[in-house]
């Protein structure tokens, strides 16, 4: 079997070269497509997955917790659908998670929508580690604000963890009984907390429904309340003339003797090869799919992979090692309900304090704890009880938990990398990506410190039991850094406008471009950066070399 069963075409099938070919219809691909199409640029996008209908999601069904563990798992290795590529993660401490389809990994994402902080863009200057970004928080702020309006972000303005700016377009979502308990605890402790901004609608917006708090966001939102670009960006892009081809797996980007990208080869579900011509190519295939594709696009002129004269394509993979601290409470919190993006967040220990024995910090996000199957099966921390006391075990946790998720800044390391597997392939016979990734000493110390503090938080909130997963293996939600931006072509892959140093009509707009990871969920930053890059493409469209 090959890719997805059928090729689907939304919009008019192109009969000539595209002005811009986008590879990947996920978060960043959708943002760029909408901006370019609205500016009248002829866009074609190739996406290996399908365009899913909301009625396919299982959140309202009795089998929700069963299908979440297979068909709607966030691991491509567990889902193993023809449109997924497998990832060899044997040599990785963390398993990468993603989704292939229109909307990309946003289809399964939790919807937490924090921004990076000003210090995240300046870690070399402030903390003497890694590298500064070639742009600042203030440079990105207008794009965060525009992107928030496109996405429909719910939140409360005025968070003192951030510089002042425009309020989120929608009021905050409820924080739930668990959030309230922990908020009270932080108020007593004098620790920062704030309602988390989420890419989830607290009220009808832009033709979409508000959230119904069913708590099944990570298996697809049946209401359409959670943002994903299949809802927020692609319909507009297509209405403005973009063409989106699904079931189309790109196998390599082609270049000509002038060193320009000329388009991409792709393979359909029947195994037939096609070539899409284009005057510019935008890669938006995520922090693993993008370096994989650039490495697969090696040629005589680019023996180490396309855009790889720096040798950094695939290197500096960052995945935010993640720890989880769950408190169990006597009170029934109904914590099976509520949006799965976080209810509240804390930046109390985010900024560097070297007395702690590490640099940088972590954001905490409080999440619900799932339904009865989740309560009954071994917990993230490994707790399981069978026999007569199984019933007491389930009663003590179903609805009684509140869980702090701790995302620590993952400093870049060139040895953490994506390469091409010599043995594993996807359903089209293309080399699968292989990961090499280990959690650094700085990250380990950081997580240990934050686990201790998050335990204090939940104890203050009244938890009778605290359970800790010190490093969750299936937590590679954030795929960053494998084609980093920078001003120096010897130490970066793309420039500060996401254009490849080596190939002037090739752009990388997904999470690969991150210089450092920050310690927050990255997608609001991915979308803001993609919007900024697209604005620049529109501004400079007349300077762009024409290939066809």
């Amino acid at each position, binding site marked *: 079997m090959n890719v997805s069963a059928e090729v689907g075409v939304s919009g008019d099938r192109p009969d000539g070269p595209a002005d811009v070919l986008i590879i990947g219809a996920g978060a960043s691909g959708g943002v760029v497509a909408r901006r370019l199409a609205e500016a009248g640029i002829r866009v074609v996008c190739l996406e290996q997955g399908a365009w899913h209908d909301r009625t396919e999601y299982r959140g309202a069904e009795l089998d929700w917790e*069963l299908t979440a563990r297979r068909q709607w798992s966030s691991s491509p290795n567990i889902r193993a659908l023809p449109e997924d590529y497998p990832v060899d993660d044997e040599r990785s401490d963390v398993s990468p998670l993603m989704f292939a389809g229109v909307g990309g990994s946003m289809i399964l994402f939790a919807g937490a929508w924090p921004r990076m902080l000003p210090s995240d863009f*300046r870690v070399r200057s402030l903390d003497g580690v890694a590298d500064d970004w070639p742009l600042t928080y203030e440079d990105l702020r207008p794009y965060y604000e525009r992107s928030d309006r496109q996405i429909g972000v719910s939140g409360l303005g005025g968070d003192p963890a951030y510089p002042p700016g425009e309020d989120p377009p929608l*009021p905050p979502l409820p924080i739930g009984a668990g959030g309230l308990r922990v908020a009270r605890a932080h108020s007593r402790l004098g620790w920062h907390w704030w309602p988390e901004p989420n890419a989830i609608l607290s009220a009808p917006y832009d033709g979409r429904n508000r959230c119904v708090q069913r708590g099944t966001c990570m298996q697809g939102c049946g209401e359409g309340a959670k943002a994903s670009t299949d809802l927020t960006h692609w319909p507009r892009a297509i209405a403005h003339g973009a063409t989106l081809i699904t079931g189309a797996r790109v196998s390599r980007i082609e270049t000509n003797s002038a060193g320009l990208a000329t388009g991409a080869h792709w393979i359909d579900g029947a195994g037939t090869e096609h070539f899409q011509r284009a005057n510019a190519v935008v890669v938006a295939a995520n922090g693993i799919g993008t370096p994989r594709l650039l490495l697969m696009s090696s040629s005589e002129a680019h023996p180490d992979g396309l855009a790889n004269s720096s040798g950094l394509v695939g290197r500096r993979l960052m995945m935010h090692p993640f720890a989880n601290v769950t408190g169990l409470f006597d009170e029934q919190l109904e914590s099976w309900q509520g949006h799965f993006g976080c209810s509240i967040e804390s930046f109390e220990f985010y900024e560097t304090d070297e007395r702690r024995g590490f640099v940088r910090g972590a954001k905490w996000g409080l999440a619900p704890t799932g339904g009865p199957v989740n309560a009954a099966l071994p917990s993230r921390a490994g707790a399981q009880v069978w026999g007569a006391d199984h019933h007491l075990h389930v009663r003590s946790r179903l609805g009684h938990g509140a869980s702090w998720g701790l995302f620590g800044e993952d400093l870049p390391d060139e040895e953490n990398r994506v390469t091409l597997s010599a043995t594993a392939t996807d359903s089209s016979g293309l080399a699968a990506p292989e990961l090499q990734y280990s959690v650094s000493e700085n990250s380990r110390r950081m997580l240990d410190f934050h686990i201790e503090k998050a335990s204090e938080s939940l104890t203050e909130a009244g938890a009778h039991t605290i359970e800790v997963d010190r490093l969750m293996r299936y937590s590679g939600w954030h795929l960053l850094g494998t084609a980093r931006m920078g001003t120096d072509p010897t130490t970066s892959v793309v420039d500060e406008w996401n254009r490849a140093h080596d190939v002037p009509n090739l752009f990388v707009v997904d999470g690969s471009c991150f210089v450092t990871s920050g310690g927050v969920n990255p997608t609001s930053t991915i979308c803001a950066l993609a919007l900024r890059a697209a604005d620049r493409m529109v501004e400079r469209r007349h300077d762009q070399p024409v290939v066809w």
Partner: protein
Amino acid sequence: MNEISDEPPAAFAALADALVPAAHGMPAASTVVDGNRLAFVVQARPDLADPLAAIVAMPMFDDPATRLDELAAQHPELLAALHLVVVAGYYSDPHVRTLIGYPGQIVRPVSALDYPAYLDEGLLDRVIERGPIWRDPTATGHDSA
């Protein structure tokens, strides 16, 4: 797999009861996870049919607890499948859900116009009074606070 889902074999019932016996006012798994419940599980997750068939096809045994220990030691993937089949069958039963006070994932539309109770309660007052806590990179190493 049909044989299993039509009438759960005795071997499955024994193992299911060892995992989830009647206790604390709750029914035993074997009385809940009948052919219908098993059919529901296998229909949602056809990939569970083979591991389940493999478990019940193992040579007869007297002591389910020993069999569970053996599975844990030698076939942890089969044991994980068994756990999932038993709990998914058990907790999808309406009576069991009533007993544990779980109504399912119900629809509770957000009412964005409700003034958040935490603001009323003053829970953000201290956070706001403390002022900015972000570190200003332009302020040469000083936090903005």
